[in-house]
């Protein structure tokens, strides 16, 4: 099992997190856990659009990276975490322990960045 898969599995050990994927900036799926295809591919493509809007807009404002973006709908939340060359996406229900989810995402993002695999 790859380092990235392990990091995603550990992230999804948090009971509030339904699944996670890692995509490149242009929407290519790098790794997924608990999100099956074609859902993972679709989610990756759509969320890469979101990440692109954020990145290009922030560049206009003189910033290169964002920390996190959360889409909250009437059914749940989609978290996007900027990993520099890639984006970590996690899906959760609506009623969750925000603190624990934030901590799990922070740890997973650090693990993924440390693994260096997303540089390939």
């Amino acid at each position, binding site marked *: 099992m790859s380092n990235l898969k392990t990091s995603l599995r550990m992230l999804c050990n948090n009971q509030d997190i339904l699944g996670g994927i890692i995509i490149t900036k242009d929407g290519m799926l790098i790794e997924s856990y608990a999100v099956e295809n074609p859902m993972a591919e679709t989610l990756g493509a759509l969320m890469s659009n979101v990440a692109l809007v*954020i990145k290009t*807009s*922030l560049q206009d404002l003189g910033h290169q990276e964002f*920390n996190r973006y959360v889409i909250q709908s009437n059914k749940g939340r989609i978290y996007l975490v900027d990993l520099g060359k890639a984006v970590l996406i996690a899906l959760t229900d609506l009623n969750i322990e925000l603190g624990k989810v934030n901590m799990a995402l922070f740890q997973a993002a650090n693990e993924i960045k440390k693994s260096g695999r997303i540089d390939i």
Partner: protein
Amino acid sequence: MKKTPGSDGEGFGTAEEYLNAAKSMRNMGEYDLALNVCDKGTAKFPNNSNVYILKAQILITKFKKVQKADILKMALVCLEKAIKLNPRSYLAKILASQIFLKGRAYKRARAVLLDVLKNLPDDEKAKVLLAEAEKHIEKKPKEEKPKGAVAKPTASSTSVESSKDDVIVLAADISDADGVKTGEGGQWELDEKLVIDTAEDTADDEARMEVFADKLTMFSRLEGMQGLFIIDATGQPYKVINKKKLDENAIPSLVFNLFKASVAGASRTNFGSFQRGILIAPFGTIIIVNVFYATLALVVDNDANLQAIEARIQRYLEEVAG
């Protein structure tokens, strides 16, 4: 004696006041007065892209009444200025693309629309307009060049195929909207069938937006507040409370484009309807709220109390819905 703001736009303190006064006049059919207010707005806020966009919208509406191509050229000049000031402006690009289509400058329309789709790949309006442009581009080489549509050659005119596009280039190259030269304006061959959608708000929309704006005061005392934006359905700011000199071109475009991308993202992944977007950026946290026919954006410090803000948002939504 202190001068009070008048209906002609004299003495307004913010760009939104100019925008809202001009919109009211436009909705009453007073296009020249509305344009006059826009001119005063651009003189006072030369770096605000939204006043240029509104001026272009009003010019397009006026064009629909009087059918003079020069008016469309002036609108295009305003849109070019707006895009220069705010390269992410969705509305400016959509309007410009429609003017290009109307002027049969299909390649230019395509270029602008591809630029929109680069940022918002799922935008239906841009896709439809792009399909229209491409339909004509494919058809064009087979058609004979019509008589009397010859433009002055420019550095960029290289072929017969691009001659009509170059007419638009001439218009587009004029940098000063006030000193627009109509020149051989009559040579614009307009597509009579194509109707430009100016995405104007109606009097009903205006009334609704007024309610949304009036209730913003409930956020004003929140700790860590940097700014508040009420953005209409076309991406134009209706009310701005800017406490930290936030970029009034870039932030509304970011909010509008992110809102659109998020709505598409949530619905197409079966995550239901978008309610909030929370962006934690280096300069602060942007909270995007879906407010029925508009978007509310709050920019707060990164250490602000998000729970207190959420409670306030809930109260705001209850009040504007009631």
